[in-house]
């Protein structure tokens, strides 16, 4: 096995181009589990730990650009106000030790349908910045990034550099079902983001389909029916839950049944939209 240690982004891209089968490793919270359990024997590990820029973030021209390796702990501490949905999801990742190492870039690279960062990225409309030495930069909307169970739009010679997200202009919430309050792989999860300026609501479902996905019909339904200046109509809320559940395509597995997941998605959808709506109305009244 080779152990590659680029110290700049350009070196990292060159290493990946020369050896596309090299597995990028940063926090190691997914990759090392697979190696420890002999599930994976990569021909090379590409350690991104010395590419310092991947652990920086900037806010410029109204967009947050967050390096792929910024650990969850720092997203919680430093970006809670700008990216509240993602910060909430980050708080539910693993344990403090895992959050000190794990990052959104790793979540994206693994592309597990259960990854906690995916629903808030979808709901808030994130764009993933990837690049390769020979193909240059590609900007991939989160909704087009996930292609299948642990499959993404990332090409073999590409690396994930950052994700781009506009700071929240309205309330955002994330909720997750699991057996305890820590160290939980989601049974299912849900994120909602209100965009009051555009009179639009974004959604993201986790662990409820082969890929993380939006509930597009539910979003369109709210776009048509939601009265942004009044209380939330219970019938409308119920229908929103149904449409979110209908967007799910879950499976039975060790963590839960498909029927339970579908039911839970409806509950989480109603709950998170209610929380967000209370904030929205409270903000207007204040």
């Amino acid at each position: 096995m080779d152990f590659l240690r680029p110290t700049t982004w350009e070196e990292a891209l060159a290493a990946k181009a020369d050896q596309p089968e090299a597995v990028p490793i940063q926090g190691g919270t997914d990759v090392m589990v697979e190696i420890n359990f002999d599930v994976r024997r990569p021909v090379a590990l590409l350690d991104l730990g010395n590419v310092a820029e991947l652990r920086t973030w900037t806010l410029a021209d109204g967009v947050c650009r967050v390096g792929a390796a910024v650990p969850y702990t720092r997203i919680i501490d430093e970006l809670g106000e700008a990216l509240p949905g993602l910060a909430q999801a980050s708080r539910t990742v693993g344990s403090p030790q895992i959050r000190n190492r794990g990052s959104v870039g790793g979540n994206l690279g693994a592309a597990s349908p259960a990854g906690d960062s995916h629903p808030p990225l979808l709901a808030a409309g994130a764009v993933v910045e990837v690049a390769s030495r020979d193909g240059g930069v590609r900007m991939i909307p989160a909704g087009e990034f996930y292609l299948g169970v642990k499959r993404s739009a990332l090409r073999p010679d590409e690396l994930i550099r950052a994700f781009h997200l506009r700071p929240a202009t309205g309330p955002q919430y994330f909720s997750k079902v699991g057996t305890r309050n820590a160290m939980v792989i989601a049974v299912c999860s849900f994120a909602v983001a209100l965009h009051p300026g555009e009179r639009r609501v974004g959604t993201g479902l986790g662990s409820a389909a082969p890929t993380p996905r939006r509930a597009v019909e539910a979003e369109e339904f709210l776009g048509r029916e939601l009265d942004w200046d009044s209380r939330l109509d219970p019938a409308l809320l119920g229908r929103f839950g149904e449409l979110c559940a209908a967007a799910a395509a879950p499976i039975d597995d060790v963590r839960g049944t498909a029927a339970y997941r579908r039911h839970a998605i409806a509950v989480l959808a109603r709950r998170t939209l209610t929380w967000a709506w209370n904030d929205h109305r409270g903000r207007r009244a204040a």
Partner: protein
Amino acid sequence: MRVTFTVNGREQVADDVWEGESLLYVLRERLGLPGSKNACEQGECGSCTVYLDGTPVCACLVAAGQAEGRRVRTVEGLAEGDRLDPVQEAFAECGAVQCGFCTPGLVVQAHDLIERVGKPSDADIREALAGNLCRCTGYEKILDAVRLAAARKAAAR
């Protein structure tokens, strides 16, 4: 490959390290530091918690090569000579140790908490220790120990 890094203040060199090997394996099997425990190998149990450049991490999930040039502090590096760290003292005094397997990881993680947070609430303690499993104590005496260590630290400030 060769990995050179600082462990508990001393530069250490490990040779013939396999590229897929974990930092935990290097500490235990190559450097003779068995304090950090090897249990789940998937970041679930916290018994291998060490400081990496001052941040607590699961050593089983760090590739050994990623420690090159970095600073690692293990449970063996907390005491000063024969004098236990206040967290270790509190664990012994409160009966927070039964079989002892989870203790090193809990001690390192609790050490980090009371370094960062002056007066941790019970919620802070539970959150900080959420990734460290103990199957003996039921956690109550561990919580007692962390409260005691934090109170002593606050009094000493």
